[in-house]
């Protein structure tokens, strides 16, 4: 077996520029596999000394044909693929997708399911923000803060695994409900973890908030103004860091958000420090929401009583012919979604996570399109990189929290 010489392999990309604008500038290639760019992203940068003149950002190295694959699965069996979009907060993807299908079918969720989905979405948001902040801090050398945050994130993952059976890709959403109800003692453990989280997050605040090195690396770096951010399609924590309180949970309330009391943290000038702080404050708000939801949760069914989408009780499947047939039809043909199209958006951990679905009736979607925040952010991230130092590229990129799974789909 002999490998072809490296020089014969074609270049997967064609850079936007190969010559510098200014004399003495150099074109460097960063990534796609680089320890400092968490995620497979490739940046072709023109640098003059240490200053970045312009950048050309390439994504796609994690493209796996999500949308194509969905067109040959039933509405239910593509949920595991949806999980793998933003793998740091997979439950938010699940619920956003399920809600889009439920809109097409005209399904109203049970109160317990609604509250539980909201609770789990906020829990996932915490895990996502912890990951983002931890990774961004580690890349600047703050190993202790990283370990504190990842410790608590691991408690969260293990805890969600107790409920869903998986640490990262849960496949827990079901159209019209959820896979299963909470196990015994789950909520007690949740409160324990929230308390521990307070301690760990406080320690990180103490370590970095007023740390001179941290501030020097973060303040006034990667600045973006509100108008600019909206022009480039930024949503989520990045848009809020510019000082504008836009949040779908408040603006177009879905699930149980209309019944909750919470604030929308905003930044001052849209730099790296603000993005760090907005995420940390959102963790606090999410904890606040989860505590309210624990009180709101009442016993009741977690799935709608609708034979179009919900599987019958297992016991009935073994004993009644009608239940057996429903089970068979739902598994083999998939749920039958009426023809139509819908766009449904949730506030993902990184911004507006939308699903545009087209159904022509029947058990298989005609089209599943995911509007992923990370992908749109990659289209405008050069506005936050150009003009700063090469070394700033790492914390700025970390604060954008590009997730390869949802960016490249």
């Amino acid at each position, binding site marked *: *077996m002999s*490998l*072809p010489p490296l020089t014969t*392999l*074609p*270049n*997967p*990309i*064609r850079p*936007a520029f190969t010559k510098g604008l200014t004399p003495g500038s150099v074109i460097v290639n960063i990534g796609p596999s680089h320890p400092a760019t968490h995620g497979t992203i490739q940046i072709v940068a023109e640098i003059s000394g240490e200053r970045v003149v312009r950048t050309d950002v*390439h*994504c*796609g190295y994690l*493209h796996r*044909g999500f*949308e*194509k*694959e969905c*067109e*040959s699965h039933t509405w239910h069996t593509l949920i595991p693929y949806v999980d793998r979009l933003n793998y740091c907060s997979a439950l938010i993807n699940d619920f956003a997708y399920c809600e889009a299908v439920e*809109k*097409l079918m005209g399904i109203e969720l049970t109160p317990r399911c609604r509250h539980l989905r909201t609770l789990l979405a906020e829990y996932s948001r915490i895990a996502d923000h912890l990951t983002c902040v931890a990774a961004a801090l580690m890349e600047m050398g703050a190993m202790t803060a990283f370990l504190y945050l990842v410790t608590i994130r691991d408690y969260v993952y293990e805890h969600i695994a107790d409920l869903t059976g998986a640490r990262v890709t849960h496949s827990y959403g079901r159209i019209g409900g959820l896979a299963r109800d909470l196990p015994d003692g789950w909520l007690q453990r949740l409160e324990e973890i929230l308390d521990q989280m307070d301690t760990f997050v406080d320690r990180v605040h103490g370590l970095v908030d007023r740390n001179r090195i941290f501030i020097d690396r973060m303040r006034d770096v990667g600045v973006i103004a509100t108008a600019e951010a*909206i*022009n*480039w*399609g930024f*949503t989520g924590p990045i848009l809020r860091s510019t000082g*504008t309180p*836009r949040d779908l949970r408040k*603006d*177009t309330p879905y699930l149980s958000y209309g019944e909750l009391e919470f604030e929308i943290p905003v930044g001052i000038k849209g730099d790296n420090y603000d993005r760090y702080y907005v995420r940390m404050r959102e963790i606090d708000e999410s904890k606040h929401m989860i505590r309210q939801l624990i009180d709101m949760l009442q016993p009741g069914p977690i799935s709608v009583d609708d034979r179009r989408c919900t599987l019958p009780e297992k016991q009935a499947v073994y004993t009644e012919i009608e239940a057996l047939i429903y089970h068979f039809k739902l598994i083999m043909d998939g749920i039958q979604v009426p023809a*139509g*199209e*819908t*766009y*449904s*958006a949730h506030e993902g951990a990184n911004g*507006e996570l*939308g699903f*545009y679905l*087209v159904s022509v009736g029947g058990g298989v979607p*005609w*089209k599943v*399109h995911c*509007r992923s925040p990370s*992908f*749109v952010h*990659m*289209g*405008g991230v050069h506005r936050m990189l150009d003009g700063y130092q090469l070394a700033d590229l790492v914390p700025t990129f970390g604060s954008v929290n590009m997730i390869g799974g949802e960016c*490249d*789909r």
Partner: protein
Amino acid sequence: MGTGENLLERVQASLGAQALETGMAHGILVLQITAESLVPVAGRLKQEFGFDLFLDVTATDWPQRRPRFDVVYHFYSARDFVRVRLKTQVEETDPTVDTLVPLYGSARYMERECHEMYGIRFRGNDDLRPLLLYEGFVGHPLRKDYPKQREQPLVPYRDVKP
């Protein structure tokens, strides 16, 4: 929500004349327009009605239909919290629409994706290089006639002898 619904009614009344068909679908105002009126309508949506956030562009392939493709746009008003969907049909022989880059910076990247996945040409967007795919990829994978199992390895498979 009251102001948002009023806004959609005003948009519908004002832009209805430029649309072939209008209607509400799951809380979103849908305007079916011709490819020629895309830029004027999008411009008015942005300037007159405050739809400042360009969310998404994608296409839908209907192989049995003429014209074959729908190009689908979503806009959001960050002031009134409502969404508008624009749909325009293009022929397979000339799948061309005008770019929205002069109105929205974010259109640049999203149009690139739509171009490589469906082969829609965005007139005026000077950067339609492959984005999620790679240089030299043949075909448009999200078209219905592109077989899911087709392989186009960029790096040739190694010949492994047992």
